[in-house]
């Protein structure tokens, strides 16, 4: 059998790769994908804990995360498409109005 720690570490590694993606990539789609990757990494941890503790609630959580992720991706990509149409760029750095 496998120690749960290993899966948690894997989850962390994937999550951090997702973080790195958000932090370093300029292409807005890739940023989005990185977010998905982070969600998946979290899911993996949930599933691992569910298995480790023999409780199904973790899996339920994963289920909800997936649903919400689906909704989020749908709306998020719609927003991206709209923004792209006005700005003609997929560069996140082209959006920097949010400053003091």
């Amino acid at each position: 059998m496998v120690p749960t720690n290993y899966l948690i570490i894997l989850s962390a590694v994937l999550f951090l790769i997702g973080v790195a993606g958000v932090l370093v990539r300029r292409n807005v789609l890739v940023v989005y994908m990185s977010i998905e990757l982070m969600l998946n990494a979290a899911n993996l941890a949930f599933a691992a804990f569910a298995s480790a503790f023999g409780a199904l609630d973790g899996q339920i959580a994963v289920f909800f995360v997936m649903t919400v992720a689906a909704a989020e991706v749908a709306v998020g990509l719609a927003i991206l498409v709209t923004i792209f149409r006005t700005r003609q760029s997929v560069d996140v750095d082209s959006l920097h109005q949010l400053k003091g």
Partner: protein
Amino acid sequence: MSIDLLVLLVLALIAIGAALGMLFSRNVVYALLFLVLVMLTLAVLYLILGAPFLALAQVTVYAGAIMVLFLFAVMVLGTHSLDELGGPIGWQRPWAFFLTAVFLIEVVYAFAARVGKLGLLSCAEAGFGSPAAIGKLLFNQYLLPFEVTSVLLLAATIGAVVLTKDVLSE
């Protein structure tokens, strides 16, 4: 080294490799494909972890539906490749990698050395994580969140349609 561990390691390596591939590929489509690979690997892992329902959902929802959505988006936005090293905040890149690495080391250290054994994975009971078991839990204890989620999905659907109405009507 048990066979399980070996499988896990292989899967883990594939997942990490694919994730890194996504991180570094300049082409969006490649990145997307790498992400699909990660998700499929995770689906396999779910199976190992005794969550067959999740594995299926992972394949259909993530690897299927969501990735298709991404593909549509790529179609609309095009596959521009940007100068990832430059940009107005190019200085952020090394810092981001460095900090991520630091965090990684801390996490690995934490879970490898500090937290202690969380126990072995066990899928002792038959039917653990089966659709029936999940369904029972979902429609009893988690009924309200479930319904709320459905409303959320409905709202997202409408939202997506409204937001892209101009695009579609062209």
